């Protein structure tokens, strides 16, 4: 475990005040979004389960702060945080989770597939590691067009033994593609600890592919931003791919339903230790300490987040459900008679 546990003497914030406040708001929005989602799952307003990003907010927000609108990301099953961080609107996300036509995917995707291709969000993904080669393909397009855009696949520690991730690291390296691989090491693949499935830390594998690997504290949004910024600049200027590992922690279960299960893979003490390092709280405090804002301004930011979510939930609830007759829509660009076919004539 490389994360710095000492939080007594934070380094001064080097991000401008308005930017710093934006990072706080985004992180807070993710946290409160996830808490709202759990309530909606409990109310049976959201079908199925979702994978909450609670605890890891600094990673998504720090990484995406170093990106431009035209850069692209691929996300994971735990994708809500990445989507909000990249600029996704919570009302369209909530509408998707409620299965409405106004949702990002028009009710066809749900939690694990939310995407906004226009915002460079190539989708959450239900298969571990699957977004990595897609990011490489997008990066190829950018490079061939001579654009200085980058592609960022997010994945967890659980993905590092997935074959397609290795294939992607290799392709990015041999073709010198503008890809920044972001590994969120929350130390557990569902309940399996990383130490049981890898002899080395994720970033230590990077040199074997011929690219730099770096680890930084994923509970410190400034550290995440700084590391990503360096890697992104290198990628933009033809320096090729980088592998970044951020040590982080999910405070909650692998998915919504884990609350109802008896699990013992993590101790209450371990969870508490990480909660005490909460990135959002720490960032809010640091901003006050560094004189970037007042407590009053922070509270105003919190209220702004709450109203975005209230509006979002209201928007989702008021949105129309899809028409059952449209169930086969969007399968093909060019349709033919009975293609796709219904299950009964």
């Amino acid at each position: 475990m490389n994360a710095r546990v000492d939080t007594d003497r934070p380094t001064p914030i080097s991000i401008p005040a308005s930017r710093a406040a934006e990072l706080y708001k985004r992180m807070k929005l993710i946290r409160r979004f996830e808490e709202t989602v759990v309530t909606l799952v409990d109310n049976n307003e959201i079908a199925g389960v979702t994978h909450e990003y609670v605890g890891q907010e600094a990673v998504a927000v720090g990484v995406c702060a170093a990106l431009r609108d035209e850069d692209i990301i691929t996300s994971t099953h735990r994708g809500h945080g990445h989507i909000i961080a990249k600029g996704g609107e919570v009302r369209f996300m909530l509408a998707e989770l409620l299965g409405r036509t106004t949702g990002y995917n028009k009710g066809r995707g749900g939690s694990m597939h939310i995407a906004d291709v226009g915002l460079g969000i190539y989708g959450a993904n239900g298969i571990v590691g699957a977004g990595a080669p897609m990011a490489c393909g997008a990066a190829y397009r950018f490079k061939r067009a001579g654009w200085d855009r980058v592609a960022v696949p997010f994945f967890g520690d659980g993905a590092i033994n997935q074959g397609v991730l290795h294939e992607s690291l290799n392709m990015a390296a041999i073709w010198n593609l503008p890809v920044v691989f972001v590994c969120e090491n929350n130390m557990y693949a569902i309940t399996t600890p990383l130490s049981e499935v890898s002899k080395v830390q994720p970033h230590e594998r990077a040199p074997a592919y011929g690219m730099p690997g770096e680890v930084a504290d994923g509970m410190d949004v400034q550290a995440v931003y700084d590391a990503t910024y360096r890697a992104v600049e290198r990628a933009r200027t033809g320096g090729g791919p980088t592998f970044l590992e951020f040590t982080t922690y999910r405070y909650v279960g692998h998915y919504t339903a884990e609350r109802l299960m008896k699990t013992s893979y993590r101790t209450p003490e371990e969870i508490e230790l990480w909660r005490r390092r909460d990135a959002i709280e720490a960032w809010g405090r640091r901003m006050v300490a560094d004189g970037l804002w007042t407590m009053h301004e922070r509270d105003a930011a919190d209220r702004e987040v709450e109203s975005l979510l209230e509006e979002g939930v209201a928007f989702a609830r008021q949105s129309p459900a899809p028409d059952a007759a449209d169930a086969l829509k969007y399968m093909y660009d060019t349709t033919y008679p009975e293609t796709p076919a219904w299950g009964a004539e």
Partner: protein
Amino acid sequence: MRKLRYLQAMNEAYLQEMARDESIFIIGEDIRGGIRGETKGLLEAFGPDRVIDTPISEAGFVGFATGAAMAGMRPIVQFQVPSLIYVAFDQIVNQAAKLPLMLGGQTRLPITYTIMVAGSRGGQAGQHSDNPYPFLLHAGLKVVSPSTPYEAKGLMVTAIRESDPVAFLAPAMVLGQRGDVPEELYSIPFGKGDVKREGTDVTVVAVGNLVPDALAVAEQLAQEGISVKVWDPRTLLPLDREGLCDAVSSTGRVVLYDDSNRTCGFAAELSAIIGERAFGSLRAPIKRVTRADIPMPFATILEQAVLPTRERLATAIRSVCFHNGVPA
């Protein structure tokens, strides 16, 4: 008209389409070398950025094509052996085939998967003899399996221009065939089957590799006084259901000749459609001549035992024409 071999017809489609549309690139293993011929000259014409040799990473380069397509490109992904698609199955079935719908139409994936040497070609054993279109059809990919050089070019052009994932299966046993191929660029629409031979007693529906076989058997049975119609669906999805039912109804007898597994193979679906829609026109039960439900064994005698052969087709045709021992 000018005659080309099947592989040359594919090659001409690649060359002409890539010259027409800069967003097309081709990616796969050993594309640049092009030893079989269908990718010959591409590297010289379009350079290494558009003609990409990959590491042996099937899942990786399929996902790469998906991402490139989302970013605005029109990839051709070539598999040198059909069973290699299994290595990339998540990226084909779970990603490319599903993303357009799962994303609510936010992206189109104009990807052509060229699947070379489909079907058995003798002595290739269990992992190099597959004809995997049932898997792809089940996944919802558009699937074409042209049986002549003319259709190879015209359907390849449509496949490349279609803004959906399309699997183009190039059947092993027709790759050396020569036929008329216009030099100019042309396309053949999807979802239109083709009557390859007129006949009045029985309809044989044959796919890919088996179309030339069916035509040979039809000639042979003409000597016995049986008039065989041969219908080639050409595109398996979209399927020309109307053309199928018309072809079957016109004779009232049908033999489905399909080199995929018997259980849940393509012939099973054809049979169900005919049963649901053309039942009234049938004068004899539907017959299927398919591959057996096992991996391809190596020894020639065993391979011949499990393949849909001309002899089995001839026997099946005779049996539907003489239902219960009397002319039906």
